[in-house]
């Protein structure tokens, strides 16, 4: 593989592991467009010397300038809080690292990115076979440094949590996830009947 391809491949991995923020960007753009269209309409009406459509610029400015008069304090505070929360949503979308629930697997030729959900279901399959239970009795959650395996045994048949842990760790090692997460196996105290 050429150096150029290697460099681009690692760049692709970094890009794929983070969100592009395309959805909040599109929402923000649509909101700005709607506001701009309305302001444009009122400004054009004003420039042409026509009557305002909904609210003329002077009336609007006067109303904003005389706040909090004429509005109940509760409504004003609630509207402010709503506006603040919407702003916070967009601000956090921009500032947070935006990591996606994905993992990258080392590969010589290609960039491999795996959804955490796919890995979780393969771990759940290994855990289920090691524990000898039905698919519904195993729940696997993948965090960044921790893999949580919850097993509900069939009533009367004990589950060897050491064997489950070994199976899950073996699968993780084969997948070569970096960094290797810690495996927590929790066997529920009460069993299920008739699986």
């Amino acid at each position, binding site marked *: 593989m050429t150096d150029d391809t290697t460099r681009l491949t690692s760049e692709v991995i970094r890009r794929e592991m983070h969100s592009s923020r395309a959805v909040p960007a599109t929402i923000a753009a649509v909101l700005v467009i709607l506001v701009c269209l309305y302001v444009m309409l009122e400004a054009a009406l004003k420039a042409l010397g026509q009557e305002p459509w909904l609210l003329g610029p002077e009336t609007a400015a006067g109303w904003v300038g005389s706040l909090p008069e004429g509005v109940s304090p509760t409504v004003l505070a609630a509207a402010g809080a709503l506006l603040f929360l919407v702003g916070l949503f967009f601000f956090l979308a921009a500032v947070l690292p935006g990591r996606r629930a994905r993992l990258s697997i080392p590969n010589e030729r290609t960039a491999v990115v795996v*959804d955490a959900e796919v890995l979780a279901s393969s771990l759940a399959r290994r855990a289920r076979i090691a524990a000898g239970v039905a698919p519904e009795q195993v729940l696997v959650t993948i965090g960044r440094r921790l893999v949580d395996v919850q097993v509900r045994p069939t009533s009367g048949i004990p589950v060897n949590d050491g064997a489950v842990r070994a199976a899950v760790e073996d699968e993780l090692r084969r997948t070569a996830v970096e960094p290797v997460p810690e495996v927590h196996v929790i066997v529920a105290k009460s069993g299920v009947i008739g699986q």
Partner: protein
Amino acid sequence: MNQTPRTVNRILLGLFGLILMLAGGLAMTLGVPAVARWWQTTAAQAGEAIDGVLDATTLAGQRDSWLWIVVALLMVLLVILMLAWVANQGKGRSGTLAYDDDADPVPGSVTINAAVAEQALKAALSERVDLVNSAVSTYEFRGKPALKVRVFPRQGVAPYVVAEEVSTLVAALDEVLGVQTPVLISVSSGARSRFTRAERVR
């Protein structure tokens, strides 16, 4: 993989969020009498200043300032910029996998269409029973063509096995084409892999 302007997204979103947060915070604190008094005097001063500017820009014989036309045009400009921003999200699909017009060893140009790789990989992947679906697309990444292979395995299929086998296919494709492009294998879960049966007899 695509050409979504990620830095621009972050800057503009942060700016938009900050403005909304400031406006919201101000509206929330207007209930405090001191803040309300400050706001009303500041607004009155700003209003006078704006009135002065509007009067100064009103041409003789006109009722209103020509600044309103400027405002309307600015809004049109802003709408166009926003539309351009939206249009750039997820951009970057390309139809060319490889292009070469070197005069050495023979003059002439060779173009390999993206459909070659897409259809070859798609056909090879559609035979597999452990995948519910697959999608292959070509993007232009940093000015170079790059392949994106998206595979949707059934529940419980080990992702490293899928990745290994797809990358063998990619290596075979390299041999056939004689060029190496960056390749992304994205092992994803979709609605179809979630709702289909976990295993099939193989």
